[in-house]
């Protein structure tokens, strides 16, 4: 099947008003998110109790990882110390930092400033990130749907039709022609890579 006869001519205004703006929007929102997250994080102070707990967990992790370099008895006595069933055992100390693991409904979920830094922050960061992604996808689907955006230079199989051509209900259209949502996804992926570095 020759591809030349299947080439569609797309309006250049699609390129000007959709392709480039989507790219710019993705990049800018990513930048905005990283900037606000660094600004919010800088004012937090880690309470000393949580540093201790994190240190304990780090030491137990090290014991598991590098314990083979210690003599058997020494490893054993350390293991007995950490896993002691005594009420005062280090792994049995209660802590706000650990409580949130129990169903996540602990008092620690009250407000962002009340939470100890660390897991909760990461969780919330991820949650806000997901929410933001969802919102952007919905907005784009709403505003930029119903038309073909661009043609990817490599051939795709029929299975990808549903994913890449959302909103374009032409069953005979070559799968290489994709819609705006997939362009948004692609630019978001590359922007993440660029930012990570």
């Amino acid at each position, binding site marked *: 099947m020759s591809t030349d006869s299947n080439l569609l001519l797309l309006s250049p205004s699609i390129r000007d008003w959709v392709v480039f703006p989507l790219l710019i929007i993705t990049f800018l929102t990513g930048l905005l998110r990283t900037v606000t997250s660094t600004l919010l994080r800088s004012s937090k102070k880690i309470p*000393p109790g949580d540093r201790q707990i994190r240190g304990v967990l780090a030491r137990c992790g*090290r014991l598991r990882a590098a314990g083979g370099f210690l003599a058997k008895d020494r490893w054993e006595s350390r293991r007995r110390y950490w896993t002691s069933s005594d009420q005062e055992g280090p792994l049995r100390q209660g802590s706000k930092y650990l409580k949130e693991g129990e169903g996540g409904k602990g008092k620690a979920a009250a407000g962002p400033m009340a939470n100890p830094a660390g897991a909760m922050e990461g969780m919330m960061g991820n949650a806000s990130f997901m929410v933001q992604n969802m919102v952007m996808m919905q907005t784009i689907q709403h505003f930029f749907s119903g038309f073909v955006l661009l043609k990817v230079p490599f051939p795709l199989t029929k299975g990808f039709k549903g994913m890449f051509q959302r909103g374009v209900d032409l069953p005979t259209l070559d799968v290489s022609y994709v819609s705006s949502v997939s362009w948004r996804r692609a630019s978001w992926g590359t922007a993440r890579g660029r930012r990570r570095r």
Partner: protein
Amino acid sequence: MKPRSQLEYLRQQKLRDPALVFSLSLPLLSSLSPKKEADLAIFEQLIIAGCDLGEFEVVKQCLGLLKEQFGAIVKVVQPAEPGKEPKVKVEGSSRVGILEGKFLEAQGDYSSATELYNTLLTQNPANVLASKRLCAIQKATGTPADAVKSLLSYLDSNPTDVAGWWELSELYLSQGHWQGAATALEEVILFDPLSHDVHTKLGECYYGMASGSKDGVCKDFSGEGMMAMARRHFAEALNLKRGNLRALMGLRMSSRESALRPAKVNDKKGGALVDGSVADIEVAQKLHEFACEEIERVTKGKYGDLGAGLMEIGRREGEEIVAAMANKAE
């Protein structure tokens, strides 16, 4: 290389050469300004070098400029609410506070420095630099036991500080406390298991504990016997760095001890202490042979009479071990 690039290199490599830093940065002092971010690191380097060398006039000048720009540490008493005590809030830059503390320490005014660091810790309890300086002050002014106590409380809240554990082991060793040093070095090993000098030092600690105890068994240990543990760590050190003469000497001495005086180990049924196994003694003998050969290889041609003397001792010890094993077999 330009002075600024040289100073940057010293900063990046974390090298401490006060004379060099001072000679490079003093000429720049007139052109430095605390408003420029690039100059701030040079100010810091100059202050620390000045404290090291005792050039207090220069340090006072630099600190004055920084305090003007960023604010010295002060305790501000806030207006008291009726019926409550007035709250004290700490204001000022903590980084400048640390530098000021170092200046006070350099002048010998440890009480003001301690007060300043405690103030910094009320401002931010997670200020690691301030807690470390408090430990350093204890080490400078107090007994080693005091220093150990303060370092232990620092390590309670910062247990992942490897350098802290290393420092603790040195403090214990300075008091001859083998067991404490061994515990501290074990922590270092857990963080840094592939470092041959930690294994060597730990082997030496176990050797010290074993030679000082009855039957080569310390009350906290059962099973292997400490001399065998020392042997293992020396062997590991050699595994990590072949030809390490300190570890070779340790291996030779500890394998000789464990061959001639095998530790009593716990009976498998958990009863009385019984003699160590014959297999373990054979391992000890082989390790002793290996150590002697390696020492010969490493000291060949060097050290003159000392090398020959070492070989002679090694040969005699080897014969001793063989004789002991033959006696045991009878």
